[in-house]
């Protein structure tokens, strides 16, 4: 009886993806890790657009779909508390890869809407919830919160409880 495959073992496609990415950006990756057979790379904000463009356009990778782009906040980190995570899917190769970057408070990222137009909404939400700017995004406006909202609700220092500024803050004039 063949031994069951380990859950942490990388698949052949993942190994190919890892070798291609390592040979191209080997020294530029700040960190690379595998967990449960998934690849994760941490890149510098300057390389963000170049890495994602390489992932999309290279013949061996063909990550043609941006599954999701989101943010994260680690207040315990002193210099780079914010993180932006892009999950890529390759439909031809049926594989995934995760690319992260770490940012400081006032740092912004170049947009990837030129690579995947669907990144527009994801970047918009990341900006709205974490205050991470995306240079070149065509429509960086509030989507889920009210137009005069002040603050970034998914930051860890945002108050969990309490309606900010009273019971109903939004002026409904002109809306109803």
């Amino acid at each position, binding site marked *: 009886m063949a031994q069951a495959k380990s859950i942490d073992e990388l698949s052949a496609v993942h190994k190919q993806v890892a070798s291609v990415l390592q040979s191209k950006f080997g020294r530029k990756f700040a960190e690379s890790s595998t967990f449960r057979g998934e690849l994760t790379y941490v890149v510098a904000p300057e390389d963000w657009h170049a890495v994602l463009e390489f992932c999309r356009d290279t013949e061996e990778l063909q990550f043609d779909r941006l599954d999701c782009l989101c943010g994260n906040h680690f207040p315990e980190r002193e210099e780079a508390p914010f993180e932006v995570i892009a999950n890529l899917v390759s439909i031809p190769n049926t594989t995934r890869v995760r690319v992260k970057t770490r940012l400081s408070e006032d740092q912004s990222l170049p947009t990837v809407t030129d690579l995947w137009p669907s990144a527009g909404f994801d970047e918009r939400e990341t900006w709205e919830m974490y205050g991470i700017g995306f240079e070149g995004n065509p429509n960086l406006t509030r989507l*889920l919160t009210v137009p005069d909202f002040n603050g970034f609700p998914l930051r860890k220092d*945002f108050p969990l409880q*309490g309606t*900010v500024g009273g*019971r*109903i803050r939004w002026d409904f004039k002109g809306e*109803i």
Partner: protein
Amino acid sequence: MEEGSAFVGIADPRDPREIRDLSAAFKRPSPIELPQTLEGDEEHVPGVLTTTLDKIINFGATVSYWPLLFGLACCAIEMMACAGPRWDISRFGMEAMRASPRQADGMIVAGWVSLKMAPRVIRLYEQIPDPKWVLVMGSCATSGNIWDTYNIVQGVDALLPVDVYVPGCPPRPEALWQGLEMIRKRIREGKHGYDGMHTIPIRAAMGE
């Protein structure tokens, strides 16, 4: 057969040659013999029930309360169960959940209302023709529940006049059913949530 009486007949499908006489079935019924009024009692005319137009309309609305088809969150799942075969509010004429506010008699606010959703809730409420009754379903719509946060309206009664609150997270279909029974009672009694108000609470808060 009498001379001069109309002959009404129908062909028997089994035998087309045989014509049956059905004139008895088409005979005019004899007028109902009303009992004589009591001597000196001219107010009570037997066979006539007096009522007001409001009462008869409210009676009709009691058995045809059509809520707006409007689910906001998980409470809507219980509302769907209530409309399904097990609890079956169609027994009381409530199964026709109208997708247009102009055809509805009221709304069930089933779930939390975010600040972005609030103008739409108000707009839907105002488009429902009078008289209308509002049932607030679940703790979130009643008081905000655990969502004491930046984006949730802390109680729909800050926006709309509310008739019935149904607590629960989410309430069981039986609880919603009881709430709808209370709505029916209010319809029968001709009471509304907006009685005594000049305008709805949010417009009053805005100074309109």
